[in-house]
């Protein structure tokens, strides 16, 4: 049976990995290629690279980094950030990405989801949604979680899937950076309306949070986190052991020191 996936997320700016807490105050963490290789050897099931650069020079640097990562790391790579057009899809896919995550670009132009799904297949298009509770419902936020679009997150996700998004990354702004667990309530709401894989993001603080996630919500396919992995608070090998001890099906790697 398919295993639950553990996915470290690397935010990349000017060729370096950074991570924001609640999307603010970035701090430099590590080299993307080194960090990616380390995670791959530890048993990460997939890597997500977010390009948080705005300049074209930064974008070129990111594409170079991606090529270097994809030449040395042989697990699925998802790329997001600054994906606004089919040309952006093409640029990252030919640099070694397997899946492309759209967020603000799809909010501005929802047709991008369908166009990309038709050209590259549903499995290639990941809809990443930053959502936050506003007046008793979940709103979609754009621009890295800074701008309330007023759109209902569940409606948006339903629409994205119907247009061809093959996977959903749900990042709860309410729990992001707080490290007290994933947003189970919001995730449950999303899992009950879509049949595509759902990746939980935002709020993991310890191994127990992943156990709770997969036990409480068996429909969630993957858990994504950044700083707890980057700062070594949770080691992926240990996390896989802990999940397996709790009866959750995970991929174990043959030799950790490979």
């Amino acid at each position, binding site marked *: *049976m*398919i*295993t639950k*996936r553990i996915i470290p997320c690397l935010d990349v700016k000017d060729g370096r990995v950074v991570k924001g807490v609640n999307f603010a105050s970035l701090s430099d963490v590590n080299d993307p290629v080194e960090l990616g290789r380390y995670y*791959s050897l530890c048993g990460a*099931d997939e890597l997500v690279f977010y390009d948080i650069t705005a300049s074209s020079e930064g974008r070129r640097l990111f594409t170079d980094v991606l*090529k270097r990562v*994809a*030449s*040395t790391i*042989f*697990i*699925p790579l998802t790329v997001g950030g600054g994906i606004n057009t089919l040309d952006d899809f093409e640029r990252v*896919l*030919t*640099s*070694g*990405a*397997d899946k492309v995550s759209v967020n603000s670009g799809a909010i501005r132009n929802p047709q991008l989801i369908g166009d990309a799904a038709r050209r*590259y*297949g*549903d*499995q290639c298009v990941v809809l990443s949604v930053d959502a936050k509770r506003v007046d008793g419902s979940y709103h979609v936020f754009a621009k890295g979680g800074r701008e309330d679009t007023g759109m209902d997150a569940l409606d948006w996700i339903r629409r994205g899937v119907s247009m061809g998004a*093959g*996977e959903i990354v749900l990042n709860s702004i309410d729990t992001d950076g707080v490290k007290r667990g994933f947003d189970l309530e919001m995730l449950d709401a999303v899992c009950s309306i879509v*049949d*595509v*894989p759902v990746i939980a993001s935002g709020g993991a603080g310890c191994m127990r949070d992943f156990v709770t996630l997969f036990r409480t919500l068996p429909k969630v*396919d*993957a858990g994504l986190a950044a700083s707890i992995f980057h700062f070594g608070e949770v080691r992926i090998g240990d996390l896989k052991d802990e999940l397996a001890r709790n009866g959750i099906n995970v*991929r*174990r*790697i*043959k*030799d950790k020191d*490979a």
Partner: protein
Amino acid sequence: MIAIIDYGVGNLFSLKSSLGMIGAQAVVTGDADVIRRADRLILPGVGAFGDARKKLAQTGLDAALCREAERGKPVMGICLGMQMLFEKSLEYGEHEGLGLIPGEVVPMAGRLPAGLKIPHIGWNALNIKRPDHPLMKYTDSGDCVYFVHSFFADHCAESVIATAEYGIDVTAAVARGNVLGCQFHPEKSGTVGLGILKAFCEL
């Protein structure tokens, strides 16, 4: 030298890099002459069967590939490339495959127990049916590989060398003489996948 057959479908960056990683010389090519001179062939593929099959026919590389397979050259299809090795596919209509392995490609929809998502996407464990097969030289049952697909090869029991359990036994790897196939992506399956590519290079 390994020729990765380029017929305008899919992303070949990782495949070429992964072969480089295990020390194999690989070229991405759409040139029938290079295909003839190569020691081994890999037929990759993503997307829809009908579309990919048509492109392969338009380039004339299907004939070149079949000719080399008949001469005994090791050929490996990956994902949709594996599916095209079979006689036919029922993906959105009925399409003729290359006919190098008996069997047909059928949708998962309607054949899986309720509650399982389609596509079958993610890491799943291999159940090796033919542990003596040289392609599985570095691989054990229980090793996980990365799948992304909604259709699978059926009616091909005599060629199956490994399956994966997803409510049903999904054909994961096949072999018929020098013609081989993986439904999963060895180039995206970490060290296990590299082991399978290495085994292919040593056939």
